[in-house]
């Protein structure tokens, strides 16, 4: 057994995953969500219509007046001082629980009043939660530090004006590659999939919006398009690309780390993790473009301590607190005011903080509404079955 086998097998039992893996993890917990559905009553109901309440009219108050905050975050996704610092300053005691996949978070939330005041879904699940009206609009009066956010995150496609969410950390979807395995070639565009060394070994993410975005970009279209004709082009592009692909999977860390895949569409965070095992790896936003992803703080409608949650959001937006967080988790910080407190070395890394020119090529995934989103999902099913 070579080292690679050992890595492969070790991954099987590797419970300590870093943030981004969970987007990719085996999402078995979705079945528990299904079970919860069954338990909650088998009747299928009418679709939920999100209430379009005026955020200004919705004051955030604690339903239960006590100095408590129930915070549900990803594992290993915080600075050791973030929570003690908040507790010392406010006298609010924090119950800090962790999840390791968005589905796990959803299962908790779907089961009814979860008791959590603050949760951190990824932007794709933010969209899902909003469709089901599970989140409370933020009370901006309680978040004076909101202005510290970078402009890009105040006007972001996923939640313009931060009505429901404040970003925690962000990254990009681009191409991970192993320079040596590709024969020293520098990857700059999606043409890399056609390299002889990548043939039959490269990986495409198994996530409808991300994979379809690659198809759209490859066909020269906007990754947030609503045009059915352009989606068709993307399906054609991807069906053609399939002939040179090795695998379609969201579990890219293992194949990248073991060297099995010399090229993969990947989330930046997963690549950083794979780099720990395989230092030959690099990450790039292809010239056609990519996407940005973001994990966001939100307050569930059922939150018993909504005001305390707002206090925490304001706390994390402070320059020095945000800076410490960014240094600890080593993902992109959305906090412009925190920049002076972020390590030079991280700021200089374009894989974490892309240049202005590269940033223009990585829009956020926009919520296109149920009908179009359904079209994306079905187009992706067609690519996979075709």
């Amino acid at each position, binding site marked *: 057994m070579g080292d690679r086998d050992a890595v492969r097998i070790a991954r099987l039992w590797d419970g300590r995953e870093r943030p981004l893996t969970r987007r990719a993890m085996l999402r078995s917990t979705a079945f528990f969500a*299904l079970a919860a559905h069954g338990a909650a009553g088998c009747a299928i109901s*009418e679709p939920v219509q999100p209430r379009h309440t005026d955020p200004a009219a919705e004051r955030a108050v604690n339903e239960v007046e006590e100095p408590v905050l129930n915070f549900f975050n990803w594992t290993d996704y915080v600075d050791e001082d973030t929570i003690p610092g908040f507790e010392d300053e406010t006298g609010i005691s924090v119950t800090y629980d962790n999840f390791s996949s968005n589905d796990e978070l959803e299962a908790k939330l779907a089961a009814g009043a979860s008791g959590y005041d603050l949760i951190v879904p990824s932007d794709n699940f933010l969209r899902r939660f909003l469709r*089901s009206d599970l989140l409370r609009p933020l009370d901006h009066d309680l978040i004076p530090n909101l202005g510290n956010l970078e402009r890009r995150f105040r006007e972001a496609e996923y939640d313009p004006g931060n009505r429901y969410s404040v970003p925690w950390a962000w990254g990009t979807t681009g191409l991970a590659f192993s320079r040596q395995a590709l024969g020293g070639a520098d990857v700059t565009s999606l043409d890399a999939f056609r390299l002889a060394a990548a043939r039959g070994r490269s990986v495409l993410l198994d996530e409808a919006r991300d994979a379809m975005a690659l198809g759209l970009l490859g066909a020269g279209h906007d990754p947030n398009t609503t045009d059915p004709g352009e989606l068709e082009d993307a399906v054609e592009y991807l069906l053609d690309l399939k002939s040179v692909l090795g695998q379609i999977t969201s579990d890219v860390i293992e194949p990248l780390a073991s060297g099995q895949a010399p090229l993969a569409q990947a989330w930046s965070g997963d690549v950083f993790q794979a780099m720990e095992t395989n230092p030959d790896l690099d990450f790039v936003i292809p010239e056609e473009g990519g996407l940005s992803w973001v994990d966001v703080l939100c307050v569930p409608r059922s939150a018993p301590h909504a005001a305390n949650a707002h206090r925490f959001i304001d706390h994390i937006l402070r320059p020095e607190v945000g800076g410490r967080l960014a240094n600890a988790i080593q993902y992109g910080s959305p906090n412009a005011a925190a920049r002076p407190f972020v390590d030079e070395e991280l700021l200089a890394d374009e894989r974490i903080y892309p240049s202005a020119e590269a940033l223009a090529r990585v829009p956020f995934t926009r919520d296109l509404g149920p009908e179009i989103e359904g079209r994306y999902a079905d187009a992706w099913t067609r690519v996979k079955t075709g």
Partner: protein
Amino acid sequence: MGGMTRGGTGRSLAGWAALAPAGLWLGAFFVVPVALVAQYSFATRDLGIARVVLPWTLDAYRLALDPAVLPIFWRTAAYSLSATLACLVIGLPLAWFVARHAGRWRLVLLGAVLVPFWASHLARVYAWKALLAEDGPVNRVLGLVGLDRPGGLLLTDAAVVVGLTYGYLPFMVLPLYVVCRRFDPRLLEASYDLGHGRFGTFFRVVLPGLAPGVVAGSLLVLVPSVGDFVTPALLGGVNQLTFGGVIDDQFRGGNNWPLGSALAVLLLATVAVLWVARGRRAREVL
């Protein structure tokens, strides 16, 4: 289950009570979930957390029977039939030998077939991943005779068939073992005496005698390999999506629960038809 009756007075209360645990179990964990799935298949997809909402519609079935989805039918059929055939080719001589020639080693050999089955299917598929990888032992041995494949044998259709065959072989061996034990050796002597050669004896006497086991074993391998999505997903390449895989995608990816449910209902219906058509002789064993 009529064994509980006493004195021929029909089924007693105790007899029905004995059925209760199994009935409750099947009701709660089989009938109710299947009914739920059937219900979901007529609902509308929701992209919020409800996943399925009103109104009722046939959209899911329309999508499931769309020509674009056809490749998964052929692919699933090809994988599962190849695996069934491979299990038969490996399992028949194995079962015959263990049943008739192994003597006191019989139980030990039967155990050897079964023991790997006690380990998690997932772990065993991962083991095959390591075995079939580019730097894995299989590719290295093939390399000695110049038959190795760049990239290893992973991500190929052959890898999927190997994984399925390995995974479900015990299901084939056990019913075959039963019919091999029951097979009357005097039939062989009679066949030779009456002029059949080895081939004639095998095809005209042995195989018909073992037919119930062959049919039962084939069904036991075919049915789970049609539904298996883990093995193709882990060992197969980019064109590995099978019936089970599409269903899994619709649920886990959160893409389309009604479509996943409709496909599951279609799969269940296909299996039910196979079951009913399995023939009278197979019923002796299964």
